[in-house]
């Protein structure tokens, strides 16, 4: 039977986001986003888990070098850490940075960055907005 080997690396970042669509009036924003509706935004300490799938290299004993994955995650998160996602990250110019959409964007970035890696492929993105609320995103 085929087996699956996964490796997960976790990294935290802090960012703010606002649940507010400027083309809607205040009433509609409040109706759709409830207590989260505000043009100013609020922040979280996010925790990102990147899970990759691959074969264990016979020489190194690794699916991927954790140091390389850590370096890649740090590079990717430069555009997210200590940023107002709606205002500072062009990927959210027209996309509301809900946890669902942030997870989806992170999937797209990591999938592209890992695509020519030859060792492993992206399996899942798990993004914690708070310790009690998280989103899983993957494509199968």
């Amino acid at each position, binding site marked *: 039977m085929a087996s699956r080997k996964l490796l997960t690396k976790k990294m935290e970042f802090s960012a703010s986001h606002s*649940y507010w669509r400027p083309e809607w009036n205040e009433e509609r924003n409040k109706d*759709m*986003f*409830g*207590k*989260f509706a505000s043009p100013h935004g609020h922040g979280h300490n996010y925790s990102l888990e990147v899970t990759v799938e691959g074969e264990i290299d016979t020489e190194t004993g690794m699916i991927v070098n954790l140091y390389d994955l850590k370096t890649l995650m740090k590079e990717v998160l430069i555009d997210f850490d200590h940023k107002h996602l709606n205002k500072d990250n062009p990927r959210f110019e027209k*996309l*509301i*940075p*809900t*946890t*669902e*959409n942030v*997870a*989806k964007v992170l999937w797209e970035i990591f999938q592209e960055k890992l695509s020519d890696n030859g060792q492993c492929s992206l399996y*899942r993105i798990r993004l914690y907005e708070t*310790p*009690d*609320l*998280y*989103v*899983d*995103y*993957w*494509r*199968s």
Partner: protein
Amino acid sequence: MREVICVTKRYRFSAAHRLYVKGFSDEENARIFDACSNPNGHGHDYYLECRISGDINPETGMLMNPEELDRIVDPVIGELDNKRLDVEVAYFREYQPTGENILRYLWERLRGQLGDRQIHLRLSETSSSYFEYFEESNYPYEC
């Protein structure tokens, strides 16, 4: 390629229970239920993870507003929070307040209110035991 998105929200409640069969002696109950049959009861901090899968609503960017989920889950959890389950909650006077039955109760209370969304519930009784409840159509669950 199929896109899969799950949102999981964790809720906590604290409750006491005693596991026992009414007609049995304390010794017999202790043999079956061990420490869980202490006649004075004991308690746990339960964590309910409520996982919903579906599509992102393009207007809101959300799968489900967590506030809406709270409006459904909080009152159900609230009825168990800080209660002695087998004494104060009618359902558990009939069914043993085991983790399995507490989760079944939560499933029955929540399932209907969550419409046609795919849901997966996980109840942790301690840091080393948890129980899961989900529909077979949602299996194998990859999250």
